[in-house]
């Protein structure tokens, strides 16, 4: 259920941009999703096939680019991947704090075909 309303929102955004640019169909939606964004790409894809029926995105595909999360060291400022049960910076031994890397969740672009212009 978690991914269902989010997938609806993704389709809405794609449709808005297609219409705004004069296209009647979306061939592909490119998403950027950090691993910490809380949404499972496979589930979004599964819902996409169902929810897109009857929309401008029907028959299109969804492509999800993943981003690996990183902590930022409060001491030396380096970004690093967190080890399990640890926040320790591998560069200086300082403490890592949550950063925005890995939290991304946005529609990067849509792909349309010139054949669908103005229909």
């Amino acid at each position, binding site marked *: 259920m978690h991914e269902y309303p989010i997938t609806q929102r993704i389709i809405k955004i794609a449709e808005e941009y297609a219409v705004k640019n004069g296209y009647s169909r979306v061939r592909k939606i490119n998403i950027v999703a950090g691993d910490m964004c809380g949404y499972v790409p496979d589930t979004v894809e599964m819902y996409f096939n169902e929810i897109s029926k009857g929309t401008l995105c029907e028959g299109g595909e969804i492509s999800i680019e993943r981003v690996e999360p990183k902590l930022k060291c409060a001491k030396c400022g380096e970004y690093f991947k967190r080890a399990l049960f640890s926040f320790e910076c591998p560069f200086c031994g300082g403490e890592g704090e949550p950063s925005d890397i890995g939290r991304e969740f*946005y*529609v990067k672009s849509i792909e349309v075909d010139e054949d669908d212009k103005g229909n």
Partner: protein
Amino acid sequence: MTKEIEVVENIFEENDRIAAQVNKTLTENKVFCINVLGAPGVGKTSVMKRIAEKANFTPFVIEGDIESDIDTETLNKLGIKTVQINTHGACHLDAPSIQNALTGISHIKNGVLFIENIGNLVCPAEFNIGEHAKMLIVSTTDGSDKPYKYPLAFEKANLIILNKCDLTPYLDFDYDFFLKGVLMQNKNATVISVSAKDGDGFDKVVEWIENNACRI
């Protein structure tokens, strides 16, 4: 020929826009709004009952549950004005659902609105619903590793309530390990230990709410 159209739109953008509207309306009505987060069974409703007993402010509650209105009935019987939202499967409340619920209680003014989110430590932390503060409730029976396993909920909380402290003699809860995990995620949150069963610790909780409520 295929053409790529740049979008770069955050998927949460519409939710955040509505959350800002909800927050503005509540602030204008002098209602301090607390988003109450916590896993099922940590004592979210019991904590709110204890707060209401000690409070010098008028409490209002929006109860979020997948099904049932058990908690709403309990709170209304205690004289706490409560409305129910049932999500019928959805695992969190979002800003539009709060905007709708508020149309039913638009007369609320001068008080504190508690919005009890769906019992879940994951997605409720991801959605702003118009609150001024997030109150996270965890309990000693959950184990001391929760800040490490559910970092986002701890990172976003302004007030963290550790409930069921009356049970610590019977448990292996490691408070230092718990607090270390909290501090790694969030150095600004206030952590208060309570027992909703005995009522211990709630003076501090009410004091925190009153101090923050008067800032809006």
